């Protein structure tokens, strides 16, 4: 059951990483978004997969009637989704502002904090 999803997750990771290795901030962000999904699916799959049956307790019972999908990873992923979404939103706006102020979305060209022609340290006493 897990095998196929696992391979798919691997693909997600590869694509995410490849995008994040781009010079362009925008592509990095796309990569980050995909990375988030990949990680979420990884956690989800590590809790093992059960087809279809959601972890809900029927009206008339106190415990699930049948074996349900593993609820814990779902809760964890839920948390992770919301967190990664928040970060994604922040980074997106950050990228936009950086682009506005620095006039480039090429990360290698963002050299204010570490200037290209960095002064050599002073000598003498």
């Amino acid at each position: 059951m897990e095998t196929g999803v696992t391979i798919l997750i691997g693909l997600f990771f590869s694509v995410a990483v490849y995008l994040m290795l781009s010079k362009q901030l925008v592509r990095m962000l796309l990569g980050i978004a995909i990375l988030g999904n990949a990680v979420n699916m990884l956690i989800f799959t590590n809790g093992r997969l059960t087809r279809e049956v959601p972890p809900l307790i029927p009206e008339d019972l106190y415990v699930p009637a049948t074996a349900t999908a593993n609820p814990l990873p779902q809760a964890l992923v839920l948390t992770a989704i919301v967190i990664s979404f928040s970060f994604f939103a922040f980074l997106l706006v950050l990228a936009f502002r950086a682009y506005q102020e620095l006039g480039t979305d090429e990360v290698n060209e963002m050299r204010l904090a570490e200037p290209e022609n960095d002064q050599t340290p002073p000598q003498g006493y």
Partner: protein
Amino acid sequence: MIDDTTLYAVLAPFAAAVIAPFLTRWFKHNAAWPLAIVPALIFLHFAGFVEPVSRGESFVAAMAWAPGYGVNFSVYVDGLSTLFAMLISGIGTFIILYAGGYLKGHPQQGRFFSFLFMFMGSMLGLVLCNNLISLFIFWELTSITSFLLIGFDHLRAASRRAALQALLVTGGGGLALLAGFILIISATGEIEMSVLLSSPDIIKDTTLYLPIFLLVLGGAFTKSAQFPFHFWLPNAMEAPTPVSAYLHSATMVKAGVYLLMRMHPLLGDTVLWTTVLPLFGGVTLLVGTLLAVRQTDLKLMLAYTTVASLGLLVMLTGTSHEKALEGAVLYLLAHSLFKGALFMVSGTIDHEAGTRDVTKLGGLRSAMPITFAAACLAALSMAGLPPLIGFVAKEVLYYGTWGWPGFGLAVTATAVIGNALMLVIAAAVAIKPFLGPKVETPKHAHEGPVLLFAGPVFLSVTGLGLALVAHTTGALFIGPTLSSVAGRIMEVDLHLWPTKINAPLILSLITIGLGIALFTQLDRLRSLIAGALAAIGWGPDKGFDQVVAGIVSFSGWLTRLVQNGKMQTYMILIFGFTAVAVLLPGYLTGSYPAMPKMPEYRFYEWGIFLIAVLGLIAVLVAKTRLTAIVSLGIQGFAVALIFMMFGAPDLSFTQFMVETLSVVILALVMTRLNLSPSDHRPWPAAVLTGIVAIAVGLGLTLTMLAITQQPFDSRLSDFFAQFSRSIAHGRNIVNVIIVDFRGFDTLGEIAVVVLAGLCVLALIRVRTRPDKTAQASEQEAMQTQQAEAR
């Protein structure tokens, strides 16, 4: 006999350091008088030990400091430490007075006093501490305080350089010493010097003797300015003369010698010891004297002879030969007295005549008779002429070197040449400025105030007095000290006048003859050496600058190499390491998963996977923003459907929402931020990054396969399923986990959401260029609110 007062005696100078500035503010330079009482009392305190110590007793007092790491503040009072303590406090007394006169009216005289006192306390601690770690702490404190004192005249680059140089050389040596001590501690399990000394072979027996020996030597040689670390000492003459007199002749530079003498029973008397020490000591002696001859500045001449004397001391200590050691102890005492005096004299001359250049000085004897007298006595002692302690010392040390079965001859020869040159310098320093015709000096010279000549007079007279009562000196000071150096009780029988014609006497006569001969040729000798040095053109001092400059520019190069400011490099490295982290351990432990069997999915599930893949590819090849955004949405939807497929309605619910909102926010943001049609990746970069990306994906897939092929422990989830409704009153187990079972995660998570919102607000609103519309509309909203309020 001993109690905590000894401990407080060590700490007293620090207290004095605190009050010194205030006293100086009130009494100006006369604060020297009350302040001098402190070292005087300390001197008296240790004087009280002389008699019992001379009976071979030794004392230990301790108070817990960091018992958790076996560190105590403990003192070990025996002959050696008593002698040093008395030198430090005794000479210290007169240095304080001298400083009072020398820096009269200086705006920061108070600060100077407290630095001096801090040093005094550190030095006392150094020579008295019984605990290796606390000994080291005081050792480093002397380096720190001397850093402050050398740099006292901080506006001059030369002072700054000298100070930093001293700090780095002695501090660097200090680190070696620390390593050595730690090795001793971990090798022997002992941390108290007295305990170690009680079983002298404890270190020699360990395999770590060699590293320990070398590291301790590193500490001692740098501190005591042994060649090739000698250069910092003459430069330290940038400091005000009281400092030179105190630190760089009488006390601090002797710390290394003290250490060697202290550890002689533990490390000494081995082939290594008796080869290395005499060698370095001898070289230092010759280099020091020769360089001294070349100088014309009084202080520098004295400084180089100090280097030489330290060399002599190390050489003698290196022989491990009783008589030579006795000579070393005697010479140590003598040197502290005459060198201290001479430094103060040179300072006085400088202070009164306005120059220290020997060639510009002459005929001051009438102007400064008392100083002249003191100078003469000190110089005679330095020259090793009777009836002064210097003479006694020379006799004994010749006796020792001559009788040493080791490289006796070589050492003796070195000593003779060295002493002869010492005589030359002594003459040049003490005779030249005072005798002969009067030379016009920048300032009109006359006798300085009592504060200035008290010190020299007392020290030189002491040098005479100790010689006259040579026997007592031997019994009270030299004997006990020698005992602690040799590591067993030694009787010493000193007399001023040689009883019979023997080798030492002859050697002394040779020394004197040679000395006089050289003095007549002084100028030629000077130009000769100068020429030689010019021919060499390089010295450790220049080397120091080159090393510092080298380190700095190397670090610049290195840093620009590893921190090249290119984000992409950073990312490639990080994911490269990620790939290693996920692939390598599995490989090394041979725990790759078994070949999985073909999973059984329904066709529409395959369809969903296919959509996900297509979405990914679409993002990868997207040429325009919107294509990218929409494709991103597609893979997100596919993920949501996968969640649904495997029974996670809440997840797919949230995923749908989040994906759409991400897409919306992207659309809102990307209106300005453009996506360049292709990410310009030259093919090598594309290949490299591609490999990294695939490696990461592959590694994680393998790891997950290996994990998911193992049985799963679902005890948590079972628990949640069991109690979700019966106790937590919720049928949606996931939601119950979120708000109850693991509600705390959620609390943190909503904090993240809030913060993200605030971050974005700050990002958009706080503008270098204020954003009209935003402010406007918010004001509008606020105004309407106020309106509603009314």
